[in-house]
């Protein structure tokens, strides 16, 4: 059988075993070792990009499975065993593995519940505390609780990051939605017309924010490509001039898909 298996689809050999047990509809309390071992080994063959330190853990598990399988195949001859040995043999060779799988499964399921909580919580937003520092004497500002430790600093950083996430985009993203290259092509054409069909390149950028500057630049490139405008420069290091080559390019521009 050949199918792609991604390493990061499983968080370890126990996870892979649980996946196989589920997929093969195996009774976890009565694992057919030969089948499971074969499937497991197939899978780790298919996992091409095993990282070295994790590969060893998957291989150790493969060895464990093979050992259990072979112990189960050992014939038990009547009367060959001493009483004491019999006690040892009484243990199902699979028992330790089964216990491990069951214990691991508990936490894997708990992790799924955490995932749900994480996703519920991500729907709820809060705000930074108001800055009240102007209302107090300096001495009170850094009055740390005696129990403050380095982990509290990490907690403080997490808060900053959450807020930053909310803060940064409004200026960039809303601005980005505000103007499109197409809109800006019209704006460039308009300002060329106002200036008699020719203007200094730098005059076309009366903008403060980077996004608008970038969009304006892209719109000039697009206009050049469409031969609506051309750019000329008399000598090195002199000002670039943008010249409107078409008298009424608006109709053509209106047909552009954004």
């Amino acid at each position: 059988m050949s199918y792609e298996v991604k390493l990061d689809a499983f968080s370890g050999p126990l996870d892979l075993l649980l996946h196989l047990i589920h997929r093969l509809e195996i009774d976890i309390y009565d694992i057919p070792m030969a089948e499971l071992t074969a499937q497991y080994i197939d899978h780790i063959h298919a996992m091409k990009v095993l990282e070295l330190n994790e590969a060893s853990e998957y291989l150790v598990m493969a060895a464990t499975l093979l050992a259990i399988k072979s112990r189960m195949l050992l014939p038990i001859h009547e009367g060959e065993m001493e009483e004491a040995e019999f006690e040892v043999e009484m243990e199902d060779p699979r028992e330790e593995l089964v216990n491990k799988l069951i214990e691991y499964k508990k936490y894997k399921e708990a992790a799924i519940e955490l995932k749900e909580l994480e996703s519920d919580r991500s729907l709820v937003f809060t705000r930074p505390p108001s800055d009240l520092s102007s209302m107090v004497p300096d001495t009170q500002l850094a009055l740390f609780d005696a129990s403050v430790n380095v982990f509290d600093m990490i907690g403080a950083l997490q808060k900053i990051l959450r807020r930053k996430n909310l803060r940064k985009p409004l200026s960039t993203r809303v601005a980005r939605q505000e103007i499109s290259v197409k809109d800006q092509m019209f704006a460039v054409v308009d300002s060329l017309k106002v200036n008699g069909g020719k203007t200094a390149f730098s005059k076309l950028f009366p903008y403060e924010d980077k996004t608008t500057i970038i969009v304006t630049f892209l719109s000039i490139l697009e206009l050049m490509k469409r031969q609506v405008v051309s750019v000329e420069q008399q000598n090195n290091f002199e000002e670039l001039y943008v010249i409107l080559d078409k008298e009424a390019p608006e109709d053509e521009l209106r047909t552009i898909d954004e």
Partner: protein
Amino acid sequence: MNSELLMSKIEALLFVMGDEGITAKQLTQLLDAELMEVEAALSELKTNYEQSNIRGITLKNLAGTYQLTTKPTMAETIKKLVENPTSNVLSAASLEVLAIIAYKQPITRVEIEDLRGVKSDRPIQTLVSRGLIQEVGRAEGTGRAILYGTTKEFLNYFGLQTIEELPPLPEEALKDDEQETDLFMTKFQEAFSSDEN
């Protein structure tokens, strides 16, 4: 203090404290009110937020402190402000490690790795740097391994008031499992004894 005034003062304080939050006890001190009054006002405020359609905010108890938050139904609108809202979710491996720590704390790295059957130093490091777990002590014995536990940020991150609010581990299922194992072992032994006879 009349209850409307108390509610308005609580709203103002909650607003100012933002994601820092404030406890009911702190509110009693600041407002010179009884705990019962404060709790009644908090609960009435919450009802008011929840029942009013023009309110986009509500009251939540996170990690033991009261905070104003936006209502979950506002998420779509607010996410328009956020570049990539899902980029920061925890990986499956990190969540597994975190689940183990949350339910078995304090716990060492070796115990975690034993449970998962795989090295876990990287997820642990991620969780420490995300402020979700921290060192809470050292194990006895040689090596004095670091013991990990969850933080207040953990509660905040998962929207919990206290650690007790975590859903219970599937212990019930486990008990059944154990019974089944016992049953299995009995049958197994029977098979053997009959072999013997």
